[in-house]
């Protein structure tokens, strides 16, 4: 199971929710698999998917699903402390952990070696941390949505990406339609 298989499987679960999706191939895959106005695609800015999701969840009531990656979390590890200490919203942080920098050619990250992101999340103060195989990501998101509150789901899968074209939507269009969806 690769990242795109997880995205395809969770698409029906996340379709009607606000989604912030990580830079690069993850956004291209989600855009190709199930483009929705409720999806905010990051076109740049490595590492900030979880931060955007947290900022969003702290100022309004709808749940937010941030689809992040292991490489991206590693570049902004402090985000887990900020999430762990500001858990007053309905944030679901899904970390697709494939042990690789997928957008740059699957170079290995440290999570494929000794680093355990679920352990880091727990040690950072995050309360509801779920370490699951990729095939259970959809079920974990459904359960987190039903329970409410802040959840960190680390879903493990193999590295490798699907071919989807780059997103050519203008960033202001992505932002505008997403903000309309937030208000709706």
């Amino acid at each position: 199971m690769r990242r795109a298989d997880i995205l395809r499987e969770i698409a029906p679960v996340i379709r009607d929710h606000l989604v912030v999706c990580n830079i690069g191939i993850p956004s291209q895959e989600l855009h190709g698999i199930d483009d929705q106005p409720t999806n905010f695609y990051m076109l740049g800015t490595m590492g900030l998917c979880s931060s955007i999701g947290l900022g969003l969840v702290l100022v309004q009531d709808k749940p937010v699903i941030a689809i992040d990656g292991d490489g991206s979390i590693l570049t902004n590890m402090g985000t887990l402390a900020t999430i762990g200490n500001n858990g007053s919203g309905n944030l679901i942080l899904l970390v697709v952990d494939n042990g690789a920098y997928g957008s740059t050619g699957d170079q290995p990250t440290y999570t494929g070696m000794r680093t355990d992101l679920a352990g880091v999340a727990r040690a950072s103060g995050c309360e509801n941390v779920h370490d699951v195989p990729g095939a259970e990501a959809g079920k974990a998101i459904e359960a987190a949505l039903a329970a409410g509150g802040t959840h960190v789901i680390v879903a493990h899968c193999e590295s490798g990406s699907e071919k989807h074209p780059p997103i050519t939507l203008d960033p202001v269009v992505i932002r505008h339609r997403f903000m309309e969806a937030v208000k709706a």
Partner: protein
Amino acid sequence: MSIHKRIADDMAGAGIGFVTTVPCKQLAGVIAELETRDDMRHVPCNKEDEGMGLCAGAFMGGTKPAIIMQNTALGVTVNTLATLTQFYRMPLPMLISYRGELGEPIACQVEMAVHTKPLLQMMGIPTYHLHKQSDVEELPAILKYCFMSNKPVAILTDATFWGGY
């Protein structure tokens, strides 16, 4: 009224409801003031680019954001300012302590001070430098301008503005 309360009042008056901060000695009073208020949500961040991500989320959630940071952090936020704040056209008032100016006791702070205005200018970021404490009178207009233009705007506050060390 203290300068710290006045700045916080002006921020709330501009409709700002979400503020993230990385501390600086010069900004301690404003940050302490934020902690006492319930009209703005204060979320400390660990690094300024993370804070700009939080602000982008808050803005898309319908709340006007602001970041309070030191000028040395411009070095770690250039990519975020260009590819997130500016690329998606989001407003972001940045209240920045301008370390390394007159009265600075730490030589290393001067090294980023000399790059501060050139970096901001290179990035096309409107920049206002508050030097005398009376310059704070312009803050409401600067904040209004920021949210009118949907741009990051830098408000540099030096040691003279804060009354020295």
